[in-house]
């Protein structure tokens, strides 16, 4: 019998693109196309903030930490506050990717890529503050357990040492997670890119072709990583909280710190995702993929964690009163009515009061108000750490050395710079990698096409 008409391999191999490439591909790859002027403007601002901070930091290393506002007895200041803040931000990504993955919450697909990226960038930002904060950063490698001729090892009893391990583990794992999720999308980009991008994506895509074997091991890996990342994400902020809880400072030495901080971290993380993704969706017209439904779910999470955090605030005061330990009581009394009352009430209002608006569906689904609320939450969470750290230290056991700390402009500039650093990385990410996991979206769409169910439900 006659063989079928042989089709030239060339045609099969490289049509520039088969007409009617998938909608998702076109929409989402468009985000990566030539940046607008506004984009460059924004990038310029963030880069400026970042470099100003860098210069000031160099100056500080040269002159000494004295340029910051430290005073006896407040030995930790805005740097540690900001460190904890960013570690907190870093929790949304892994939570969304890992935990929601395990719970099979499909709505995560729209936001997990962005969230994972934020996680990576936030961890990198946070990690820098450990170096910025120490008095002799040029000796900070001492904190690593490396063999040396002095035969000295490190002190694994110190919460700071746990910190070092937790943060570096978290950074590594979230980068791995981020990258593995990225590979199939990189292949998509590779097949459609030209020039240097083609080279880049080809290299990063590892020759991914979406064969069934690749997909099988890919989904297994994601599953296992989620299994590992879930306890990790809970442990990291617990460890960070132990930096304080393990000390004897009144206002720090509390058993609820671990859950309290984890909740706070998720709280701030989700808020940050909203603060960032709302504009992104608006600017790049991704309403088809990131729907109000997604944002509403995030809002629900924020409401929940806000309640947990608010409860923690309340219980802290209750325990202080109930413990009948005078230094503890004094510390908390002065937290609310002492020199730091402004910070304290800012924290309470932003974190425990304002989010209560999210009880109303109208507000949960009204994007502008979501944006405003999430911004308040970010501010509030920075102040939460400020209040815990500073007010705790300023009123310790020996009243003769009670003091008051106020950050200097140098510290504030470096803190601002950290936001610049974070934003810079995210802006570059927007133009380099798909901001939404395309293949996962496709999975839903093809599924929908085959079975006629609505996407994303």
């Amino acid at each position: 019998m006659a063989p079928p008409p042989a089709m030239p391999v060339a045609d099969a191999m490289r049509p520039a693109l088969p007409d009617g490439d998938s909608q998702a591909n076109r929409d989402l790859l468009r985000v990566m196309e030539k940046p607008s002027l506004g984009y460059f403007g924004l990038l310029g601002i963030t880069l400026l903030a970042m470099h100003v901070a860098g210069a000031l930091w160099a100056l500080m290393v040269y002159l000494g930490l004295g340029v910051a506002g430290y005073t006896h007895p407040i030995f930790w200041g805005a740097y540690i506050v900001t460190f904890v803040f960013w570690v907190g931000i870093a929790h949304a990504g892994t939570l969304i990717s890992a935990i929601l993955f395990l719970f099979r919450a499909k709505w995560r697909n729209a936001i997990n890529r962005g969230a994972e990226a934020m996680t990576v960038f936030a961890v990198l930002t946070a990690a820098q503050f450990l170096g910025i904060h120490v008095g002799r950063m040029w000796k900070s490698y001492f904190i690593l357990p490396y063999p040396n001729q002095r035969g000295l090892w490190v002190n694994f009893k110190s919460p700071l040492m746990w910190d070092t391990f937790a943060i570096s583990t978290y950074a590594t794992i979230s980068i791995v997670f981020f990258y593995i999720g990225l590979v199939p999308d990189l292949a998509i980009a590779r097949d459609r890119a030209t020039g240097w991008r083609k080279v880049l994506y080809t290299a990063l895509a590892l020759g991914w072709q979406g064969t069934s074997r690749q997909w099988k091991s890919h989904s297994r890996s994601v599953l296992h990583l989620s299994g590992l990342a879930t306890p990790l994400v809970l442990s990291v902020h617990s460890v960070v909280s132990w930096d304080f809880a393990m000390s004897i400072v009144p206002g720090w030495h509390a058993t609820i710190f671990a859950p309290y901080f984890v909740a706070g971290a998720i709280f701030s993380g989700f808020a940050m995702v909203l603060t960032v993704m709302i504009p992104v969706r608006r600017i790049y017209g991704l309403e088809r993929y990131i729907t109000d439904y997604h944002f509403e779910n995030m809002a629900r999470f924020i409401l929940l964690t806000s309640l947990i955090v608010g409860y923690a605030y309340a219980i802290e005061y209750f325990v202080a009163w109930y413990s009948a330990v005078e230094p503890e009581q004094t510390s908390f009394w002065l937290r609310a009515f002492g020199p730091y009352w402004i910070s304290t009430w800012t924290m309470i209002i932003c974190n425990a009061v304002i989010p209560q608006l999210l009880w109303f569906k109208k507000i949960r689904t009204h994007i502008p108000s979501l944006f405003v609320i999430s911004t308040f939450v970010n501010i509030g969470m920075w102040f939460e750490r400020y209040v815990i750290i500073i007010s705790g230290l300023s009123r310790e056991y020996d009243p003769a050395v009670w003091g008051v700390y106020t950050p200097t402009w140098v510290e504030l500039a470096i803190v601002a710079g950290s936001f610049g650093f974070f934003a810079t990385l995210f802006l570059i990410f927007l133009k380099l990698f798909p901001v939404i996991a395309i293949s996962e979206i496709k999975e839903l769409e093809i599924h929908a096409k085959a079975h006629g169910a609505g996407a994303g439900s």
Partner: protein
Amino acid sequence: MSELDRRDFLKLVGVGAGSAAAAGCSDHVEKLIPYVVQPEEITPGNAVFYASTCAECPASCGLHVRTREGRPVKLEGNPDHPINRGRLCARGQSGIGRTYHPDRLQRPQKRGASGELEDTTWEEAIALVAAEIAKAPQKTQVLGGQTGPTRGQLIDDFVGAVGAGGRTVYEPFAQEALREAARAVFGIETVPHFDLSGADLVLDFGSDFLESGPSPTEHAGQLADARAVDTHDDGGARVIAVSPRLSMTVSNADEWLSARAGTEGILALALARVAIENGAGDDSHRALLGGLLADFDAASAAKKTDVPAESIERVGRALAKAKSAVALPPGVALSSRRAIDTTGAVLVLNHVIGAVGSRVQVPPASAGAQPSYRETLALIQAMDAGNVSVLLLHDANPAYSIPGTAGFRDALEKVGLVVAFASLPDETTALADVVIPTHSALESWDDAQPRPGVRSIAQPTLRPLYDTRSFGDALLDIGRAVSPAASGALPTGSWRNVLEAAWADTDWTAALARGGVFTDAPAGEPTALSADVARLEVVEPKFTGSGSHTLIAFPHGFLYDGRGANLPWLQEIPDNVTKVAWASWAEISPATAESLGVEHGDVIGVETSAGRLELTAVVRGGLRDDVVAVPQGQGHTVGWWASRADEGAPGEARGVNVLDALPAGVDERGGRAWLTEKAALSNTGRSRRIPTQQTHDNQRGRQIAESISLVALAEAAHGDGHGDGHGGGHGDGHGEAHEIREPFDPADDAHADSEYRWGLGVDLDRCTGCSACVAACYVENNVPVVGETESLRVRQMAWLRIERYIGDGEPELRAGRERMGPNTESVGDTDVRHAVMMCQQCGSAPCESVCPVIATYHSEDGLNGMIYNRCIGTRYCANNCPYKVRRFNYFDNQITKWPEPMRLGLNPDVTVRGQGVMEKCTYCVQRIAEARQVAKNENRSIRDGEVVTACQQACPTQAITFGNLRDPESAVSKQAENKRGYHALHVLNTRPGTTYLAQVDRGEVEG
């Protein structure tokens, strides 16, 4: 390879390796140059001690100068010396700074054509001065401070030889009023000195005898022994202080009578009267009742002095009852225009209570030129009239310490040639035409005779750093250059020969080794009251100025008459009462503050008849409502630390000189008076922060500085002998008894095999809060001085600080009061707790477990060690230290804050810490190491008392003990077992190695 033999080869290798190693070790290679001919007494690495005499104040304490490789590094007390008995106050400790001072005058200077001081040669300078003197010898005058007998004699010889017009002795804080009063009361012109040893009741009329009095270290020691509870079951000597202001001295009193300023004499006589009525004194005294004491009944005295009549009655009866009471006359702060009568009244009281001859020694009439303010003023007039062509100035800074209204500066203009002998520049040398640079005290020979029977030598302890000469030699050189005749009339040889000649009657070497010749004071013959007593006019003094508040210009505890202002430590260490450093301030009572509408830190105007000052207000309760108190000693315009030069503002005054608001201030007999002004206070509406190192003095019942009542102590004594379960009674009497010792043995907290667990004991009942230990710690451990700006940020580096608490704070706590200023004192209440706070060397140290890099750890002998090289500066340890004794180097303080040649004085046994490193007290571990080496060489273990920490060594009252807690016989072990023993913040169970002994609350004196 024949030319390179093995030796050369090895040499080359050695050199190569050596240089490589050197290059590897540090950024800049410094060569160590060994002695070519090694001085026999010097072994590199071993300290050599020389006996000498402290020149910081007229008390003339004995010194042991610790030198290393030919450089003094620390001043310690001379145990053989009868004045300070091995102790040394903060001012004495800091004296070492004068030798290594960046301001040191390095060569002679003369005023050039430009009007500026220019360097010149010795020959030229001497020729110039001699020529001027030769022109008109009789118009030559010498003006200077109090000197040792030999130097005084030399000056007199000089005056005689060159035929100079005369010599005037000017000593700002000379006890002229006391001398005059002694003449009035005993008919002898002499300066009585007071001996508190064995006293059972001390009545202090504002002498500030623990701070700026005639001999603070001596008196502090005597008082501490007189009231040691461990040897006196009844609590020992009681101290009743009469003062309008709660000074550090008053804070150590058991009772405080806040009499109206200037009425001390009236109170003294009233007390004398009550005492006599209750059987004190003899007939001669009863005779006074009708005369001198006639109208000093308690009631009227109470009205005048504002002291309740019943208090006067009670104290008077107590005086009559007391076996060995003594009354101390007013000091500088309370020298009114009636100072002599007031002091006379106090002497009369002493006579009545039988203190004269025992506690009050009246030596025979003092010989030689005596300080006289009246003569000084006369000299100024002579200068003004142009009758002085050459003025030789030495050992004094009149341009600063004489009030401007006396016109010294203007008069100086009219003097042909002003010659200043000095080792450091000051306001006076700045006005001189010729500056003769003299050796510092540590570079020159000298002697002193603080009182009959005590002759003290000062010997040079290092080769002069610069082209300077000792005052004696310089004076001799000038004298000899004046004329052959003069040269012939002057003693031959060098100043040292002159001094040796003066000591010819003694075994020179022995005296040198011992630091002097100390014999028992010749017993003053029983002195009767002179007839002139009746002529004492004890009335309220006159005040000038229209204001409502009496201005009290009290001597700063460290700056004294201002001579301490140029020493970094004395500026850095916070004032013992207000905890303010590097500044002047005005103390006002809360009521005054309210009426002015000012708060702590606001700037107020203080206007008197003589001038107007603007000062930051320190609002505190320990002050009468009708006074404003301002410290003396600040406001210098010359000097690296005295002015604000170290802050980059040379010539700018640091603080204000309160003398600018005081008139020439002469009392009715020509003595000097400070308490003369009624000041008008005003609110400037501005506020200026001053470096305050402690803003809360309410310890909120946290058991940091404990107090225990005599009753509770007695109960404890009958307890189970381990001090458990006894109550820490509180001064304010509210205290429900509570456990102040937790059951643990600090001796446990060292390595099992270790023979030692070092421990320290602080007896808060002996501690007066004088800060001598703080200064000693600074010098011994190379602790950086951070300066005014950093002190404003509360970043001082003191390893050891003195915390000042008022009561145990529980009443304020219950009242829910949260005061932000150091003002919880209240007039009449003396429950002030001075707590020495340094690293407690905890057995379970919170700081150790949180350090990620093991930069702090527990040493085998129980110390909480610091490894500076390992520290990366996370500062977690400091956060976790409940005692807050860890200090962080925010800047490279040693480089930026320590100008050359101060570094020559650093202690080579202690590392200098760099930027970004945490540091703290380690019980002077370098001294432990030194002792351990000696013990090891002698193949024995360290003896108890062999290691003496710097703070312990300095403490005038021996409040600090140090030793091995694992030796049950050691002093510190016994102290740890003491009934009063407790551990600060013991509820935290940090298992400290430092044991505190609670302060004893002796309550009011019963009449």
